[in-house]
């Protein structure tokens, strides 16, 4: 009677659940119980390794070919808000640089001739940034342009 009760407790266990202490203790004293549990556990483990229907073919190649044909490419994305935020910071820096102490020190040292090369360098910086944004969003921008015109 107790044997069946203990066995039922074992059968009710969830996948990957540890054996209850009472069942473990019972296993120590009853070799037949231990043997039957070991048999059923090994069978259940074997079942998990070998589902009833064996794969007739390996589908992985076909699936990967179909995925390649899909027009879906994952990649590392930076959100538009982050692009705009960084762009604004660069633009503000360019605007505010003329009011900084370093800028006045530079103009004192190099004279007014510094202004044009400095503007070229800063302008190139913001242009490179804008180019990066456009290139990384080319597909999206193309769609928008088509939609509007």
């Amino acid at each position, binding site marked *: 009677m107790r044997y069946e009760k203990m*066995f039922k407790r074992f*059968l009710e266990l969830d996948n990957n659940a540890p054996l209850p202490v009472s069942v473990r203790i019972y296993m120590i004293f009853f070799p037949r119980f231990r043997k039957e549990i070991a048999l059923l556990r090994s069978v259940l483990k074997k079942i998990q390794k070998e*589902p009833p229907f*064996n794969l007739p073919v390996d589908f*992985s190649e076909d699936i*990967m070919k179909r995925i390649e044909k899909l027009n879906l490419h*994952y990649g590392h994305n930076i959100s538009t808000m982050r692009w705009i935020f960084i762009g604004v910071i660069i633009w503000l820096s360019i605007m505010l640089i003329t009011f900084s102490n370093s800028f006045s020190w530079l103009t004192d040292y190099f004279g007014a001739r510094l202004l044009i090369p400095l503007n070229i360098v800063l302008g190139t910086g913001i242009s490179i940034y804008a180019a990066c944004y456009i290139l990384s969003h080319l597909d999206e921008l193309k769609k928008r342009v088509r939609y509007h015109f």
Partner: protein
Amino acid sequence: MKKDQVPDEILIRQVILGETASFKEIVVRYQKQIYNIGMRFFKNYEDASDFVQEVFIRAFNNLRTFKGKSPFKHWLTKVAYNFGINQVHGAKLESDISSCVVPAREDSPEESHLSNEIKGLLEQAINELPERYRVAVDLYFYMGLTYNQIHDITGVPVNTIKSDVLRAKQILRDALKGTIVEDYHEI
């Protein structure tokens, strides 16, 4: 999962970062289980094969919706189960399952015989359950999912799953007595 295997979640991360080829490893890992779910739903090789391909394509398309809150295996099973249910509701298919079982190729003759006997016993146990609960019991035995995970996927109440699994285990236990499986285990 084997010790030296790259975890599923890392493979998924790689795919999302642009390494599409990493998805192949996911397919290799789970195609067998998904095929078995397909066979349980459609009961024929052709539809089960289409099912496997569709499930993985759907999973790939929706990878961004996988948030990693539960194991990937669980998420993939849910995708497969929902797709299977929708397909089966669309078309009622009947065919003889036994004719579709492909025998294992890698095992030795004794092991092959043994595993076929075990498969037969469990299949017999599962076939004694109501049709609508068979997939849930499959998920327990073949996918190794827990009662709660199966409930999340199928919506079948936990207590129903528990009692069906218990019934299947009891049938299996009774059937094992006096079979070659018991003899083999004793050796």
